[in-house]
């Protein structure tokens, strides 16, 4: 993005792509393993590389899942065969949290977040 001349609203220039008030920049380390295929999918997602709409949706899903309040493990005593496991780290400027998840132990909201991240992680 080119630097705007001083007479133009500076706010436009300093606001990075993907941000709106209330959405922090996030760095997400996403890993999915297990499943019938047993293939490990790993991706780092920088929210700055997402469209504003995608970043907003992601932020909402993270909030809905209460991600930063989750315990470090959201797992089942008896993992179901061929289910997915996830390791998810979300970092912002102010905090970082890592959670291990067994697919069948996830709430509906956490599952929605993981599905959305899977879609983003699969993108070329």
């Amino acid at each position, binding site marked *: 993005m080119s630097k705007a001349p001083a007479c133009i609203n500076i706010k436009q220039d300093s606001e990075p792509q993907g941000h709106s008030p209330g959405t922090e920049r996030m760095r997400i380390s996403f890993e999915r393993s297990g499943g*019938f295929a047993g293939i*490990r999918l790993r991706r780092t997602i920088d929210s700055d590389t997402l469209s504003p709409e995608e970043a907003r949706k992601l932020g909402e899903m993270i909030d809905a899942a209460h991600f930063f309040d989750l315990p470090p493990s959201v797992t089942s005593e008896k993992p*179901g065969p061929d289910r997915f*496991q996830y390791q998810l780290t979300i970092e912002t400027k102010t905090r970082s949290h890592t959670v291990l998840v067994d697919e069948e132990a996830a709430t509906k909201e956490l599952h929605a977040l993981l599905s959305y991240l899977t879609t983003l992680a699969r993108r070329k």
Partner: protein
Amino acid sequence: MDPRINPIECILPPHILREISQRGNTSQRDRALRTLAVSERQRGRREAIGAFAFALATPAGEKRRTIYDAHNSDTLPGQLVRGEGDKPTGDPAADEAYDGLGSTYDLYKQIYNRNSIDNQGMRLDGTVHYQQNLDNAFWNGNQMVFGDGDGELFERFTKSVDVIGHELTHGVTQFTIGLVYKDQPGALNESISDVFGSLVKQRVLGQDAASADWLIGQGLFTPSVKGVALRSMKAPGTAYDDPVLGKDPQPAHMRDYQDVSYDNGGVHINSGIPNHAFYVTAVEIGGNAWEKAGMIWYVMSRDRWLQANASFQDAAAATYDIAAELYGTGSLEQQAVAKGWAEVGISVQPAASAAGA
């Protein structure tokens, strides 16, 4: 079911549901089961299901398949689309699930005389079109669940019959040795599912051990993926090498055992080792792999030779002893078992005692 009716408020007593389950048509039986399942969950009483499941036992070994369509939702089981004896629906996923459940039932019944997953004629339920773009299939403890694949890397998961055999075998293992789904016992659990999944496929295709391809999940990749299958029992580690998916990580020998934390300790990775042991055993014996090699492996589960935390070494010792019991000490079959495990770096020793025989 009429949505105005709340099954909790007008619950039919279990003995009436049992009558319906035995005499009713497919959709009546289905509703009776689901009513009881809802009430069982609400009341938190698993013993209701236990008694009911016994009442659902099929007489003298008949399969009872029921296929559902989740219509891309999270809800299980979904809408009933095909019951036992019903004609094809025209939906490939539903019809492949129906056929695959049947082929798996037939292998277990006709070759091993096992009447369904629990050996008591348990219903074989499968749900297709579960969720959206799900690149997976699984056994959830009660039924099979199939995704549609993502269409880019994976086709629908009903496309390979060995997937269906693999998943139902998780059910068999659940009802027999209950191998813990983690680390070595978990990899053994995975391998047993690949073994019997492959045997279902080989029997459907009429292939003996020498002519089988020993590939797992052969039809699942889209044409854009550089790979022939998800796993190879004949040559673990060679099934795929793709820029997006990576390379097949399976070892073929204990020296390459992957002590990882993900995938429950690499259960889908290290299964390559006992898979290869079975392959070598079956080829060494010759003929149809499901007859002798398969029988040895099946007896290991049926007669509970293993504890829930069994290692590969335990499985080697058990199969070696079972081969002697079935075919004689020093027999060709027993020697084949020893060779199979030796090929993957495990030398057999006789079991100290049979666990729970």
